């Protein structure tokens, strides 16, 4: 799946064998089979929305509501590329 395929109707969820938790400093970490991604700020918010229930469109809407002064096109572009990077690592599935 490539970025242009990222449909608004898809339901992103955490990849199999991936877990989100807080580390000992209270920071959000995404645990993968062979590694760790430290998620800061919005990245941590987005990953919490990848619950397999919400669609990509729902996630965009939630983030737009949270950041009303940001350009929606830019939000979509940034979240899309973030989710694509996670998809390539099989850290999210659709």
């Amino acid at each position, binding site marked *: 799946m490539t970025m242009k395929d990222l449909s608004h109707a898809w339901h992103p969820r955490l*990849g199999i064998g991936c*877990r989100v938790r807080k580390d*000992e400093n209270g920071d959000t970490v995404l645990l993968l089979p062979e590694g760790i991604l430290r998620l800061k700020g919005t990245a941590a918010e987005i990953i919490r929305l990848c619950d397999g229930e919400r669609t990509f469109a729902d996630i965009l809407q939630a983030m737009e509501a949270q950041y009303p002064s940001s350009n929606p096109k830019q939000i979509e572009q940034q979240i899309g590329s973030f989710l694509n990077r996670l998809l*390539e690592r099989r850290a999210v599935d659709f």
Partner: protein
Amino acid sequence: MRTPRPLALIAEVTHRCPLHCVYCSNPLELKARDEELPTETWSRVFEEGAELGMLHVHFTGGEPLARNDLIQLVATAHSRLLYTNLITSGIGLNDKKLATLIEAGLDHLQLSFQDGEEKFANWIAGAGAHAHKLALAQIVQQNGRLAFTVNLVVHRHNLDRLESMISFAESLGPQRIEIANVQYYGWAWKNREWLLPTREQVKRSFAVVEQAQERLKGQIKIDFVTPDYYATFPKPCMGGWGRQLMLVDPSGKVLPCHAAAIIPDLHFENVKQKPLRWIWEESPAFRRFRGENWMPEPCKSCERRTLDFGGCRCQASLITGDANATDPVCSLAPTHRLVEERLARANSPASAGPDSTPTPQSAPMWTYRPQPR
């Protein structure tokens, strides 16, 4: 310098293994069954590891399933919120036991294959293991609840078949494929003359891996462990000495990596006598090569020192006889010619090249890893 936090524990729970792979990363001096830590001590190690800030436990061996308390160990690690990874040959696992392990909190399973073809795989493993592994891969695939990595160990005698090995791995339905060149420690060091690939093989393998990565993007993640000796700069071994990882061996000895016990004059502490935190933060062995104070030139003034941390201490010790030396794999190392000489031998027409790949029937020319006594 503030001591970094360890991220992961490598729990080498036993050296017992039904396989005898010629490139096993276990030390040449294997720990016997009666030296192995009891369940309670491992439980304490996981607890202390979690308190130190660790996030992952990699269960490895030997074959971790050789321990009959593995399910309990996984459950304990999981209860401390540790991510649990089982690195296994699959021997001793069936669908029922797999379900119990998942119930206990197992997050991920890595199954390694010695080849895509049974006769070669069993020849490398020194055991008829391939068919069992295939059966387990099917069980994992059918179960569908467990993250799954297929690991392919590559070297001189299978790199020419890499494309078909990748297709084979794909057919097993993993989320990840790890293609790992043999690293020359333990039994692989002993057998290095037979395992070191040619420059041509290495060059081709890079192209093969790149193509597969592109083709499988978004479906299967392919990680590639490149061959050390052909690199221009050394690998950041274990993310730096005492910087990210701790390994506890079957007897409780705590090491910064799989191989460090070979370094002379270093005393490694045991979890039976000392708390994990003290070993990580204070023990002389963990402090010995942590940070940059130990570094010789050219590392000391090299801008890459924050990327590769001077490379691998065990490699320096094995090849140059001095664990303090710059990793000889580095093209800037004063002892780099030692690696170049090895490569010249591996690439000379007289060496046992791929054309003369021995068949499983031919007399063993290498040393199989034995069972611990």
